[in-house]
């Protein structure tokens, strides 16, 4: 253009000058030529000034060309049980990456069979990678296991453009406590929006402890800024590693779970639907958290996760449901202790208060048990006498000293909730349900204010009706009784990072509204359940250990009754308290009580002295699949 311009100037002055002089020297043309040279140089300088000084896009482009930020993934925290047994660790896994620009002619068929993918999958993945970038690596195949990787690695040299990046997979040496531990999975968009720590493709705890302790377990990613050449080969760190950071490994979790007990509980519960929750009374530490049916946590890891997850969600027995916290049951007869304790505390009941029972002829609640009449509190608990507790309940709710039914009910409810019912414990147990202790306002709404009384809500006397509790809350009731009046919020993690770094918040003792003196009679009664001649769990007693327990049979409108049991042992200085629920199994004494007894023996003695009972439980199959 410059030359063009000059020529226009030159010719516009002496138009068609060449026609005039025949023998010109043309020496003046040297200046035109020099001007052409100089103008070219000037144009270049203007252009260079623009490129180099004014326009700064190119500096950014140069950085994105050369700088590659490599994220170094830290090891996720390990998870140990209360005795230091490793329950979860990271195993090396490999992501197959591809740089499309470097992929040469390869034998696609052989490659696909090596990776065990179809030709169309290969093409889809390649197109996706190409769309992202020709020169930057894309994820081609995620989470190849160690053994599979061995085969692939040998042949990698045949496939330029593909390389392997190491990641890690969760591994569960003991395939137990799947629901408690939870699982990790790739982050979704909302995870990324909530916390900018995550990048697409990262992993995050999706459930259980993996979710609750995500921030502690994940550690901190490291960053390595390296320079790469045009083929994406690393050429060393950028500015001597000034922008690099070292990954910080995740903190280990030390659980209160006893892995051995957990495994034994899962074994006992095989082919049954239900749950076992055991808690150490002195600390609130959950010793086992069994829900059944369960699944092997290793199934929800790596590439097999998708298909396994799908089949688990489609299972009619709902193995993904954690019944220990998400099962809402009426407490049944186990609730009789609660009514007894509230009655004792309020002074409407004494150890020697006696009521008559007319068996099946009793009104308004029948008695299903065959026992002497009249009877006192201890016998009533031991024999699980329904009419006795109806009388106790009525003497409280209908007591004129409270002013009204509603006020009496409010006092009753307050005592019940102080035992840990009707609300979440809000510790590290995820997806907890709060159960239900209906409020007085609820009954006002249903029956209209002033139109309900003890008779209206009589089911509460024997733990039926609107009242709902979770197995965890039931286990906690056993804890309160074992401790004679207090509990620590049940929790799963003892300490974080190191073995003795206890979590303070969980060491706060919570006192119930019941005085400790009222617990003696209840404990004695529960001991008689095992030791007494008519005790409902006498067939499950463990020689040498004083176990206190209470059966419950929960009416189930949908089918066979649920078998329920709460227990703690030993009576003096209790070490374990628990609840057992076996759905659709009939009386509490048939299944739930022996299971509790075996669990206590396993935990306290570490051996099983009653193989007959154990075999019966192990062989019991209570599942009839539709």
């Amino acid at each position, binding site marked *: 253009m410059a030359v063009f311009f000059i*020529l226009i100037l030159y010719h516009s002055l002496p138009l068609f000058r060449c026609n005039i002089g025949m023998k010109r020297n043309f*020496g003046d043309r040297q200046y035109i030529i020099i001007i052409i040279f100089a103008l070219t*140089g000037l*144009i270049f300088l203007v*252009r260079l000034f623009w*490129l180099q000084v004014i326009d700064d896009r190119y500096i950014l482009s140069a950085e994105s*060309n*050369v700088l590659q930020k490599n994220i170094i993934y830290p090891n996720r925290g390990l998870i140990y049980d209360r005795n230091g047994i490793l329950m979860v660790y990271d195993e090396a896994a490999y992501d197959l990456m591809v740089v499309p620009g470097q992929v040469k002619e390869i034998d696609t068929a052989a490659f696909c069979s090596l990776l065990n993918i179809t030709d169309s999958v290969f093409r889809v993945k390649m197109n996706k990678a190409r769309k992202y970038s020709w020169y930057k690596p894309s994820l081609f195949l995620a989470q190849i296991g160690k053994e599979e990787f061995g085969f692939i690695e040998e042949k990698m040299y045949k496939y330029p453009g593909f390389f392997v990046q190491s990641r890690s997979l969760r591994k569960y040496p003991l395939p137990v406590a799947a629901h408690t531990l939870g699982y990790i999975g790739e982050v979704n968009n909302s995870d990324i929006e909530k916390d900018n720590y995550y990048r697409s493709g990262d992993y995050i705890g999706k459930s259980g402890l993996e979710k609750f302790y995500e921030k502690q377990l994940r550690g901190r990613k490291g960053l390595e800024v390296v320079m790469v050449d*045009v083929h994406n080969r690393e050429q060393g760190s950028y500015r001597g590693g000034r922008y690099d950071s070292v990954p910080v490994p995740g903190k280990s979790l030390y659980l209160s779970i006893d892995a051995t007990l957990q495994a034994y509980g899962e074994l006992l519960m095989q082919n049954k639907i239900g749950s076992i929750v055991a808690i150490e009374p002195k600390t609130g530490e959950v010793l086992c958290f069994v829900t059944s049916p369960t699944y092997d946590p290793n199934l929800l890891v790596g590439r097999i996760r998708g298909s396994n997850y799908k089949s688990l969600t489609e299972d009619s027995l709902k193995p993904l449901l954690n019944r220990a916290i998400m099962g809402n049951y009426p407490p049944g007869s186990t609730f009789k202790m609660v009514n007894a304790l509230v009655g004792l505390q309020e002074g409407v009941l004494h150890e020697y208060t006696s009521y008559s029972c007319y068996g099946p002829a009793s009104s308004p609640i029948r008695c299903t048990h065959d026992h002497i009449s009249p009877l006192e509190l201890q016998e009533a608990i031991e024999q699980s006498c329904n009419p006795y507790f109806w009388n106790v309940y009525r003497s409280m709710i209908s007591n004129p000293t409270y002013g009204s039914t509603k006020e009496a009910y409010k006092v009753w409810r307050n005592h019940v909730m102080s035992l840990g019912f009707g609300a979440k414990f809000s510790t590290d147990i995820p997806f907890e349900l709060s159960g239900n202790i209906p409020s007085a306002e609820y009954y006002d709404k249903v029956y209209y204010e002033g139109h309900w009384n003890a008779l209206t809500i009589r089911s509460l006397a024997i733990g039926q009706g609107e009242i709902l509790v979770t197995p965890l809350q039931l286990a906690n009731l056993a804890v309160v009784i074992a401790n004679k009046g207090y509990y620590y919020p049940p929790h799963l993690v003892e300490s974080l990072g190191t073995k003795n770094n206890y979590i303070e918040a969980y060491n706060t003792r919570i006192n119930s509204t019941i005085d400790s003196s009222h617990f003696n009679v209840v404990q004695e009664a529960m001991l008689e359940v095992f030791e007494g001649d008519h005790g409902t769990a006498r067939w499950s007693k463990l020689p040498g250990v004083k176990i206190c327990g209470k059966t419950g049979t929960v009416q189930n409108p949908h089918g066979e009754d649920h078998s329920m049991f709460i227990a703690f042992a030993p009576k003096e200085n209790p070490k374990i308290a628990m609840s057992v629920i076996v759905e659709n199994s009939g009386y509490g004494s048939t299944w739930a009580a022996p299971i509790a007894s075996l669990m206590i023996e396993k935990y306290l003695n570490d051996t099983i002295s009653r193989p007959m009972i154990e075999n019966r439980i192990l062989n019991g199959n209570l599942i009839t699949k539709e």
Partner: protein
Amino acid sequence: MRERKSILQNLDWTTILLYFLLVIIGWINIHAAVYSEAHSSLFDFSHNSGKQLIWIGTSILIAAVILIIDAKFFSAFAYPIYILIIMLLMGVLIGGKEIAGSKSWFQIGSFSLQPAEFAKFATALALARFLSKIDINFRDWSTRILAAFIIFIPAGLILLQHDTGSALVFSALVLVLFREGLSGKLLWLGLFVAFLFIIALLFNKFIIIGVLAAIAVLAIVLNKYFRKRWLIITGIFLLASGYVYSVDYAFENILEDHQRKRINVLLGIETDIHGAGYNVHQSKIAIGSGGITGKGFLNGTQTKFNFVPEQSTDFIFCTIGEEWGFIGSLVLILLFIGLLTRIVFIAERQRSKFSRIYGYGVASIIFFHFAVNIGMTIGLFPVIGIPLPFISYGGSSLWGFTILLFIFLKQDSVRLELL
């Protein structure tokens, strides 16, 4: 002894200084372009920087030989040298080796030679010899045709080798003809044709023809001079219209695919930064990221890590732009403009017409290389693979330019003895 001393005294040391500055800048930047931690020596002969040192050494030797040879030799043997080179160019078509799509190399052992680089000075010599005839007159058609032949024969042969870039260099000799009296109108015409070509690619053909028609009509109506020559104007208009109309055909069928793409990229019709536009895009990134002062010697990342292709040969300017920034680029451009101006100045002081014409040949060839090479790296010109004189890596190229320049310096050193 007396004569040798006079040669040294009469040499134009300014030009020689500029020559050495450029050669050394080239050598250092070739080193930077191929530098890696593992090969950090400037004298590593397995690398381009070390090899370039050999080429520099041999170039100095060749320069010395040229300075010793009698100045009259070059004018006397201009035609034989020209014919010899023409034969080599033919020979390479038959027995040459193909490198990167161009069959333009002779392979002698591990050493390859590109006759096209030597055709430049030979053609400049022959042209100077022809135009220095006493009775030359550019109004004669025979003069024009013969001059054109001298230029087009080697250019055509090089074109046959698929080395389009080197062939185009010969068009620069038009500047020599211009200096010696070729009508400016021809240059005008050439530029008009090129202008129409670009316009025709960018805009609708019918709009262009409409605008041309309007200009022609206006010229005839408004200007008395043009009105008298309305037939010529109409003829020019018809020719131009036909040309515009046929540009697409020529573009699609005569140019090769990669050439077409490079032109499209330059004109912004195509923006394929991974394909045809990759070189220029990366080259602009490298130069643009240099900033005012550059990233510093050996600290360039774009060229060193091979984002820019051909970084020690055709795209050597990227290294300079990246590592030395705008200041470095400014210095280099000023050195080139200084050298070119100096050559023109020296050419004009020659008493011998042969020396003067040859001098313009030297200037125009170096200028063409300079303009096209830097123009392409900063996206002002389509990518044409020709080296940056004295800077780019390559033996043939450095030898060729050294011979080209030093024959002229030899002529200049004896300018008082020549007529």
